[in-house]
């Protein structure tokens, strides 16, 4: 075989492989999401209620093992196991901005043995990336926590309260610069909602991940930032950053003024953590899981964990949970204009 022939052969074989992988990957996308038929419900209902769970429960999550959300889910799993009697096994399916995990679990058998751990990402990412899957393809099981969102400034900043920020920003529209999340992320949404309610304007500089944002604020390159409490807690404790207000009441730090207390109760931003189940999962099964999750909140080991992270327990099941997700969906759509 000549050199030229060999080169063409290699290129040809590579293309064949690529096309195979390409069609293999694309296939699930082409099949439209089948409308959930009511059929599975009676089938599952035949199984007598007390038998759930008979085996381990798979909990799918969209980020890799060792990420913050993954550790949370595993720690919660240990507490839920005690009440459920069977183990929660976390299955990490990262990639595709979450779509891999969500497509997989949306199509799983709705029998309560496949669940989905979620954060607000399941509302944000499908909107921004125009995904064919969203939280609407699932049944809400229960919301467990809110990640507190705070407004923070460098320790030497003149801003000391939400009122200060509003007044300064009103005096110099657009001149105050705050680090925030990427468009659609809840830190970004929170900033927008507050600006709308209080009628001021600051420049929001988008950062991916709160760490980089915090470093930039610490270095004095920006006037402040909006982000999750957990990501800046150690710098607040060390007196390098100061919290001037929060979007959620933190039971462990009651002195921090909330936006509602500062006079803007209409600003409601809740970065949530919870669990969903595939559409069609029988209600009895969902109730059993939700009950086990609720009880887990009192588990002493788990309590120690979530209090250390200053997570706010905000248990919501069924329609309350659905309503909150619907509100957040509308909020994010308004923020990004989609």
């Amino acid at each position: 075989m000549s050199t030229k022939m060999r080169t063409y052969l290699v290129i040809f074989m590579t293309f064949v492989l690529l096309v195979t992988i390409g069609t293999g990957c694309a296939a699930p996308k082409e099949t439209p999401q089948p409308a959930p038929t009511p059929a599975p419900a009676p089938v599952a209902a035949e199984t007598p209620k007390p038998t759930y769970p008979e085996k381990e429960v798979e909990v799918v999550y969209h980020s890799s093992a060792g990420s913050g959300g993954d550790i949370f889910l595993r720690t919660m799993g240990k507490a839920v196991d005690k009440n459920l009697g069977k183990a929660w096994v976390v299955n990490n399916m990262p990639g595709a901005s979450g779509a891999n995990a969500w497509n997989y679990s949306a199509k799983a058998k709705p029998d309560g043995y496949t669940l989905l751990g979620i954060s607000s990402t399941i509302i944000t990412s499908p909107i921004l990336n125009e995904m064919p899957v969203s939280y609407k393809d699932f049944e809400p099981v229960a919301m467990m926590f809110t990640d507190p969102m705070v407004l923070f400034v460098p320790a030497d900043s003149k801003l000391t309260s939400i009122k200060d920020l509003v007044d300064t920003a009103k005096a110099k529209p657009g001149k105050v610069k705050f680090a925030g999340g990427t468009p659609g992320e809840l830190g970004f949404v929170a900033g927008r909602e507050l600006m709308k309610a209080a009628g001021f304007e600051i420049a929001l500089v988008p950062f991916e991940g709160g760490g980089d944002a915090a470093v930039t604020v610490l270095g004095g390159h920006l006037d402040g930032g909006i982000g999750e409490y957990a990501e800046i807690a150690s710098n607040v404790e060390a007196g390098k950053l100061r919290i001037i207000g929060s979007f959620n009441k933190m039971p462990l730090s009651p002195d921090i003024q909330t936006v509602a207390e500062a006079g803007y109760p209409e600003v409601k931003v809740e970065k949530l953590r919870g669990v969903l189940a595939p559409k069609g999962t029988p209600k009895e099964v969902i109730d059993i899981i939700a009950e086990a999750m609720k009880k887990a909140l009192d588990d002493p080991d788990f309590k120690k964990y979530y209090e250390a992270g200053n997570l706010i327990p905000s248990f919501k099941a069924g329609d309350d949970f659905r309503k909150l997700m619907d509100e957040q969906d509308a909020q994010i759509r308004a923020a990004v204009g989609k």
Partner: protein
Amino acid sequence: MLDSLITGLSTVLQWESLLAIIFGVAWGTLGGMIPGINATIAMALLLPFTWSMDPVIAIMMLGGVYCGGEYGGSIPAVLIGTPGTNAAACTVYDGYELHKQGKTGLGLYTSLNSSVIGGIFSAICLILVAVPLAGVALAFGPAEYFALAFLGLSMICSLGEKNVFKGILAGFFGILLATVGFDPIAGVPRFTFGFMSMTEGFNMVPLMMGLYAISEMFKQAQEVMAGETFNLKVKTDTTFPKWSEIKRLFPFNIFGSIIGVIVGVMPGAGATVASFLGYSWAKRLSKNPDSFGKGNPAGVAVPESANNGATGGAMVPLLALGIPGSNSTAIMLSALMIHNVTPGPMLFTKSPEIPYSLFVSMLFANIFMFFVGYLFIKFAIKVTSISKQALVAVIIALVFTGVYAYSLEIFSVAVALAFGLIGMILRRFEIPHTASVLGFVLGFIMEANLRRALIVSEGSMGGAFFNSTLSSILLIAAFASIALSIARGVISSRKSKTSAAA
């Protein structure tokens, strides 16, 4: 500080700590050696086992994996022209060339010595100035990051072997690749063509493995079919280099280590950027830049010292600011968080034994790395006597496995394959694919920070970049570098035209 240091030393000098460090280094080196598995993946694989350990032991072991991983990547870079980790990509240039010239021992041991020196240098920096070093991370805002990335990119020109313009072309191609995926500033997906997997952009590991490993294996497979044997025509010298040779490279090691520590401290930059910057600066500042890429041991010494120098630097933002600057340190963060230890400024006052044990353990890890590396080299050298058919097949399998293990997505395998093909095309036209990788690595840092800086300056370019001394200096250096390269390119192409005409 001395007290904390003694506490740290006494923690490290216990047999379980020492065992954990040695195991970590060996595991990391092994992972680094396998193309497709980098330090981060090697650490992630070990993470679940640390959950039942004492947090200090866990973090020391992960620190060992990190050091070992950054070193291990250079072994396949020298022996088969395929970097085991991203940060070893630069080592291929001169390391593989040395091997082809039969100076295998010089290539392998230079990389080992340089990694050890870089690692020890950065561990000493950590012990002495960890907290002040955090200031480096804080000095860099959006404008400064942009300027640094721009300066880095201006070095692309020096990576184009014969033709400066091909280097620039390859660099732009890399920047284009970096724009694929979710745009973090405007919040829209770009160039995803409806594939959900592309919304996260191209992952570094499959991209690099495609461009380097797969395309190299394709090339070698063609040679096998042409009936070439793997055994080098020249006799290989696998002995440890002479002391005079080691001594000669010492300034290069220190140069690489300093760049490594400084770049390592900056969140988001890391070992890969450090080794590229180190290599291109060394080439530019060298009296004999043409010898780089043709088997100059300094071309191995600088990037290897730089990527191991970055290991210590990367610990600074994690421990002093509580913010992980890279994927590897993010894993260390989660290893600490699971034990309710929150890194941050308070860690040094509340539980100083953790940071200081880690610092001291990294010093030990790098000393152990010398012996572990020595053993691994003895073993790895045998690779060259394996039949080429078997080797190519095994490496392709390892690469695809590693790429899949990293992302758990079959999409990544497709990305690696596609970039294997692109790599072949780039080789065919002698376009330096390393410049594309540098463009890819720096393109995203440059773009996001340019746009952030412009938001801060309210749209004024001058206000964004010439308000800070640091960014002004970096930008002026970058423009000077570009002007020089283009002038050089124009002159050399005129020369070749006249010589062709003559």
